[in-house]
């Protein structure tokens, strides 16, 4: 049947069958839009895909433009890595939780660090008060990392570390832990998030100003290219941008704009795009609107493949792979009737699977209160396992492809994200767009709009603004994980002990070497590795950097 025939048949349907119903009763809404405000038509038909060129726009998995997936066999060959974020308290606590998760069949670790660690403070620092071991594990020196990975052979697991501003220091510690286990750095696999731009934009755990921050990021890229070839050096992350309030289109556009910035900067340092781009990975959120999210992932792969080829002239096909780690958007979970979050998280995992991610994080139902309990962490992992083994989701590649709706949305999201990228280019690039407030304002406006729609009831959140129950009938908080306030004291004592036992001369020497290296243009990784071997603390290393570079003070927009 030709498209003219479809067009005629479609018009006939509208004028007869549909019209009869619409004459009698209206639809639930006047207009329907996606979560991010893209208009949604009543019906999608082949007419919407008339301009699609299958080979060019969709192609085949493992081939450009990768719309259908980055690998030729996808989940038929290997399931995604189930990688749930964990870490709390002391190194001992986290080591226990990690070994538990590994025993339960989780193949990849994802380390959550506490805020002092993420911000380069030792546990004894006044700024660290009240935060030690709270939202993740506290790491002051190599001694803590040794305990976190005790009895976990680093050649058998891959470890993703959510660490940014001081990523060099934590990676250095990981390399040394591996070395002590007898595993050479060439064999280590894992990821450092190392994406400082999204911290400036959304996550807030920056320390230094943009220029030295990017230098540190590139030091990891360059060092690993030479010495840790299997390491994913940088995970360019849209997740936090989404969580800060951006919509799906902004999330994608700003993530790609950040990627462009890193690639440009790395090339300015003299690296060839094909040397480092294959080790870049990406992370996007799983939000509420399943079809929009799946379309976002597909559009992301396609758009990135174009950018890397057209803008950066990459030749290695591996440079074009938009490999992703997706995560449950915690902001879609609520504390009212919280067990319902299990359903929401199931949908997040489903979006991730239908979107073809390489690794998936699922949240725990009780995350709105505190660090998850062991029970809720298991349910979250089981959610992924159920979807992996029970529901027939993994038998064919990119199963939503060819859906008139999903393909149309994929096109639309790509178009809208491209428009943002053009706008950012016209401003002089992402660093300018961050500096001049554009990115912050865009995110803030979307965030305000989301809240308005929730407040007005236009966006329904079940249990929050619809189908609510009285507070006294709701969940009682008794089984919630309560952080141990003793951790802080324990950690401080441990640090004092480590400092007393190490060789003070070695420490001094390592720090002064680092200082000199900072003043030069050399890669700081070797110096930092040397320092952590002598149990120089994270705080001591970051203090040298703070003294040299100062701290970043952003302008905020409300």
């Amino acid at each position, binding site marked *: 049947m030709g498209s003219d025939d479809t067009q005629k048949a479609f018009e006939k349907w509208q004028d007869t069958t549909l019209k009869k119903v619409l004459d009698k009763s209206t639809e639930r809404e006047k207009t329907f839009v996606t979560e991010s405000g893209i208009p949604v038509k009543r019906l999608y038909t082949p007419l919407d895909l008339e301009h699609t060129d299958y080979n060019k726009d969709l192609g085949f998995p493992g081939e450009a433009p990768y719309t259908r997936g980055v690998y030729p066999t996808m989940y038929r060959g290997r399931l995604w890595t189930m990688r749930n974020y964990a870490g709390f308290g002391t190194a001992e606590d986290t080591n226990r939780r990690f070994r538990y998760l590994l025993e339960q069949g989780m193949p990849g670790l994802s380390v959550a660090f506490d*805020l*002092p660690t*993420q*911000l380069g*403070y030792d546990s004894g620092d*006044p*700024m*660290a*008060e*009240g*935060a030690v071991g*709270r*939202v993740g594990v506290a790491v002051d020196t190599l001694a803590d990392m040794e305990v976190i990975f005790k009895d976990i052979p680093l050649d058998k697991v891959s470890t993703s570390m959510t660490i940014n501003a001081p990523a060099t220091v934590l990676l250095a510690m990981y390399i040394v832990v591996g070395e002590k286990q007898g595993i050479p750095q060439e064999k280590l696999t894992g990821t450092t998030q190392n994406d400082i731009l999204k*911290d400036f934009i959304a*996550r*807030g*755990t920056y320390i230094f100003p943009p220029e030295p921050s990017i230098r540190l990021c590139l030091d990891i890229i360059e060092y690993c290219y030479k010495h840790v070839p299997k390491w994913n050096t940088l995970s360019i992350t849209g997740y936090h941008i989404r*969580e*800060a*309030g951006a919509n799906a289109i902004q999330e994608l556009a700003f993530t790609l704009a950040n990627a462009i910035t890193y690639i440009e900067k790395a090339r300015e340092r003299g690296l060839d795009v094909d040397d480092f781009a294959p080790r870049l990975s990406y992370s996007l959120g799983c939000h509420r609107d399943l079809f929009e999210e799946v379309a976002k992932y597909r559009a992301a792969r396609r758009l990135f493949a174009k950018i890397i080829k057209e803008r950066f002239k990459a030749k290695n096909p591996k440079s074009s792979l938009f490999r992703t780690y997706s995560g449950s958007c915690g*902001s879609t979970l*609520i*504390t*009212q009737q919280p067990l319902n979050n299990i359903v929401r998280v199931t949908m997040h995992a489903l979006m991730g699977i239908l979107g073809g991610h390489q690794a998936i994080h699922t949240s725990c139902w009780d995350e*709105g*209160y*505190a660090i998850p309990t062991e029970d809720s962490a298991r349910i979250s992992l089981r959610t992924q396992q159920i979807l992996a083994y029970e529901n027939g989701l993994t038998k064919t590649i990119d199963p939503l492809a060819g859906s008139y709706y999903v393909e149309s949305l994929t096109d639309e999201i790509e178009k809208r994200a491209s428009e943002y990228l053009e706008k950012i280019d016209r401003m002089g690039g992402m660093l300018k767009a961050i500096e001049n407030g554009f990115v912050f304002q865009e995110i*803030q406006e979307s*965030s*305000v709009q989301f*809240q308005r729609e929730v*407040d007005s009831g236009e966006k329904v959140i079940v249990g*929050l603004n619809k189908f609510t129950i009285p507070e006294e009938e709701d969940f009682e*908080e008794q089984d*919630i994980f*309560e*952080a141990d306030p003793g951790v802080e004291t324990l950690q401080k004592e441990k640090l004092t002990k480590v400092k007393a036992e190490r060789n003070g001369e070695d420490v001094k020497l390592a720090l002064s070497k680092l200082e000199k290296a900072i003043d030069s243009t050399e890669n700081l990784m070797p110096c930092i590795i040397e320092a952590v071997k002598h149990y120089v603390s994270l705080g001591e290393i970051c203090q040298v950097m703070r003294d040299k570079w100062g701290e970043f*003070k*952003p302008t*905020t*927009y*409300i």
Partner: protein
Amino acid sequence: MQKRKIRVLIAKAGLDGHDRGAKIVARTLKDAGMEVIYTGLRQSVDQVVSAAVQEDVDVVGLSFLSGDHLVLLPKIVQRLKEQGKEDVAILAGGIILKRHIPELEELGVKKVFLPGTPPEEIVRYIEENASRS
């Protein structure tokens, strides 16, 4: 006499970097006609207190999402008192367990707003409880 605009300091104390909620509340209060100052991220106890004093605010709204409220809030309340600011209404919001609320209220925190509170409710509360002419 013309009524003085209610002055509010929205603050992020401690190391947490999540301020989507704090900014939403700040914006809503601003849109409701209040004078709103937002401290930005990672403020020490002293920085929050001196901002409250300098800006001569009627209300200090603190956002906590990383579990350090039981350590930082008592200090902020105490330091504000020392500065003669016991009339300032101290409000808190964010990830705070219900079982912590009595302890915080006893301390002098006027009200704790839990996740899911419509921002308009915070506007109403401040208008009814914190306006001075």
